[in-house]
């Protein structure tokens, strides 16, 4: 199994509201396509298409169960979440440093 997903893929994949709704359903309970399509305002083929994108992003994976394929969260997607958080905290702390240092400079100048 290769690991070629990235946080960006995951993030982009979840940018679509329908796809996010499908992801949340999979996160709540491993499900087949038909179950996921129930209650969603999109066709079953559309759900399959969204699942394909989520799978490519490493957020869900599928496994056969009898004649059905069950979709569940892919732990690699959690790795992508970690990558995203890492980038997020780097950006946030850099921003905090700029802010705090500007305060220090103002206080020194005052």
């Amino acid at each position: 199994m290769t690991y070629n997903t990235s946080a960006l893929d995951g993030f982009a994949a979840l940018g679509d509201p329908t796809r996010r709704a499908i992801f949340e359903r999979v996160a709540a309970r491993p499900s087949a396509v038909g179950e996921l399509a129930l209650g969603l305002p999109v066709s079953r083929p559309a759900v399959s298409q969204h699942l394909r994108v989520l799978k490519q992003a490493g957020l869900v994976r599928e496994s056969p169960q009898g004649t059905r394929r069950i979709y569940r969260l892919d732990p690699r997607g959690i790795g992508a979440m970690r990558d995203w958080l890492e980038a997020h905290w780097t950006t946030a702390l850099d921003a905090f440093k700029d802010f705090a240092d500007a305060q220090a400079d103002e206080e020194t100048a005052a």
Partner: protein
Amino acid sequence: MSIAPIIRTVQVKVAPARAFDLFATRMAQWWPKGGTIGKAPHADVIIEPRPGGRWFERDAEGNETQWGHVLAWEPPSRLLLAWQISTAWRYDPSLVTEVELTFAPADGGTLVTLEHRHLERFGADAAAHAQRLGGGWPTRLAAFAHLADAMA
């Protein structure tokens, strides 16, 4: 399954007490724009200054979106926050990951260290999660029924 924590450090010019204060009480002024989960951009980011206090964003219209809560409030040296935003970018009260900030004197300023840990909890057993959510609904529905009855 355990996932390595995220650890980041940054050196700032102000003393620890000031760094703690700027970090915790003026978050809205430095938190990156667009790095929030509310429907509208954040106007304020608030950490209530006590254990159990809420950590949330507020938009210009006053709508609040919770991010987590305060686990330990120990100025000037330590702040421990519960980050409760799920992989679906929603506040999830059943998810608790920890973000610990320490503020240590260094080179006339402060070394700020951030550790975000228990990341494996993002992938907590989905079945148990669903069960908890399911278990929550009867309580909420009962509360709703009670309220509705009171209004009748």
